[in-house]
């Protein structure tokens, strides 16, 4: 059996590793000169920055991605991060960090509520595990339960950091699935060597299984006969395959199918694709001699104007920066209406950093923004349309087809695992 994979991002390489392990002849085509897509290292002034991700697995060594890597035999060491911390103003009632702040552990968030709301929250934490709320956004649901703007701030910084969305954009069902996964798999972790540590390990598996990865090779068309995929077109040449796994999202995949998807039969699918919204974000990469965070946990910043959270990956792997330096990266969600004003959004982010790290010395290494064709997430969490397409033998993997409750690369892994089950049984 022959499988062709379009795109050597994380989703494509995971699929290629799994299929080649199962005995498939696998060929991966990647348009860029490098593999890994939005999950690899970019070397910049001696630092291992990244093409996208924050060198972080949302569920660390216990999550779906770690599990899938182990299953395919990829040799990656994933180190669990320390406790996620919340930076909150010192004085109750202040809405910024100007007059001082303190950090509290994430699980202590109810401590900032009134006694009554604290009791209510404790009750909700217990009861919602059995009776999951549904049918609204996270923010709308919170507002029906507890009238305290702190919880909305907290929800926004958490959703902004982990999904690059606002709490009013995320279905409450998706959030409770995520919370359940946090109980199940635990919090984040950092792969040694950063994102590229994972990509290198996957490539080694694919090579050992006889799979082939071709970079600088773009797929220009997906070939379909009688509703079934037959291969792809590369540089005008036809390559036949029994299965085609596309790592480029549903919309771009449909684009490559061309007229094969025309006709009434496919109208519903194409209409659904129109509703998919990629999420946007800005990452600011900082270099500092003295640590800015000082621990390996994520620092969420609910009282910043734009920045949702920050991590310091050199607390886990010092090799991600030159000797004596730390690499600290902030993330901010960008609302769809602000994508046209990225410079203003970046300005607000830089201002936030001054307020979050007053008196600390750091340099801004690189500011990276992501939206539209190269986004944080191809399908906003909670809207993923699954891995199948109307074409037999053609599947979509990656962050345009994440599994339910899967934050970013964990969702990519869940989607790949589900696809492999469909193909391999």
């Amino acid at each position, binding site marked *: 059996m022959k499988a062709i994979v379009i795109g050597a991002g994380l989703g494509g390489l995971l699929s290629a590793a799994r299929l080649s392990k199962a005995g498939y002849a696998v060929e991966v085509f990647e348009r*860029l*000169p*490098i593999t890994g*897509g939005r999950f690899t290292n*970019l*070397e*910049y002034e001696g630092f291992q*920055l990244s*093409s*996208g991700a924050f060198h972080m697995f949302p569920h660390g060594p216990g999550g779906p991605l770690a599990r899938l890597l182990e299953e395919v035999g990829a040799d990656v060491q994933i180190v669990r991060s320390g406790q996620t911390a919340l930076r909150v103003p010192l004085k109750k009632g202040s809405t910024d960090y100007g007059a001082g702040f303190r950090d509290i552990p994430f699980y202590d968030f109810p401590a900032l509520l009134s006694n009554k709301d604290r009791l209510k929250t404790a009750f909700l934490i217990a009861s919602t595990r059995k009776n999951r709320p549904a049918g609204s956004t996270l923010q709308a649901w919170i507002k029906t339960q507890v009238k305290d703007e702190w919880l909305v701030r907290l929800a926004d910084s958490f959703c902004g950091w982990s999904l690059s969305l606002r709490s009013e954009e995320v279905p409450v069902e998706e959030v409770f699935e995520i919370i359940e996964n946090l109980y199940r798999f635990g919090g984040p972790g950092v792969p040694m060597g950063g994102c590229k540590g994972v990509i290198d390990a996957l490539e080694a598996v694919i090579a050992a299984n006889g799979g082939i990865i071709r970079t*600088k090779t773009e797929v220009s068309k997906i070939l379909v006969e009688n509703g079934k995929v037959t291969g792809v077109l590369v540089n005008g040449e036809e390559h036949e395959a029994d299965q085609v796994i596309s790592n480029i999202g549903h919309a771009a995949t449909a684009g490559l199918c061309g007229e094969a998807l025309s006709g009434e039969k496919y109208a519903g699918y194409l209409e659904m694709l129109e509703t998919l919204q990629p999420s946007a974000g800005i990452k600011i990469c900082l270099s500092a001699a003295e640590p800015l965070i000082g621990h390996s946990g994520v620092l969420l910043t609910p009282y910043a104007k734009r920045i949702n959270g920050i991590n310091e990956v050199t607390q886990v792997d010092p090799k991600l920066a030159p000797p004596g330096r730390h690499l600290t990266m902030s993330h901010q969600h960008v609302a769809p209406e602000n994508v046209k004003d*990225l*410079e203003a*959004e*970046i300005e607000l982010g830089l201002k936030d950093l001054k307020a979050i790290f007053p008196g600390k010395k750091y340099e801004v290494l*690189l*500011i*990276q*923004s*992501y*939206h*539209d*064709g*190269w986004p944080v997430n191809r399908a906003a969490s909670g809207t993923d349309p699954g891995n199948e397409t109307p074409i037999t033998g053609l599947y979509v993997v990656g962050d345009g087809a994440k599994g339910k409750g899967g934050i970013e690369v964990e969702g990519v892994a869940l989607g790949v695992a589900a696809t492999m089950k469909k193909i391999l049984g």
Partner: protein
Amino acid sequence: MKINENCVGCGQCASFCKKGAIEVLGKARATDACIECGICAPYCPVRAIEVQV
């Protein structure tokens, strides 16, 4: 070398330019240090870099 409207500002090109000739702020911009070598162009994930030949 021209950077077109497709640019999202991801900075990928900047990490492959050996001349440090790209500044990124929401969008990439080539500085005077650019020698038009074209090395950066194929690394752009959204085909925003046009090299004149």
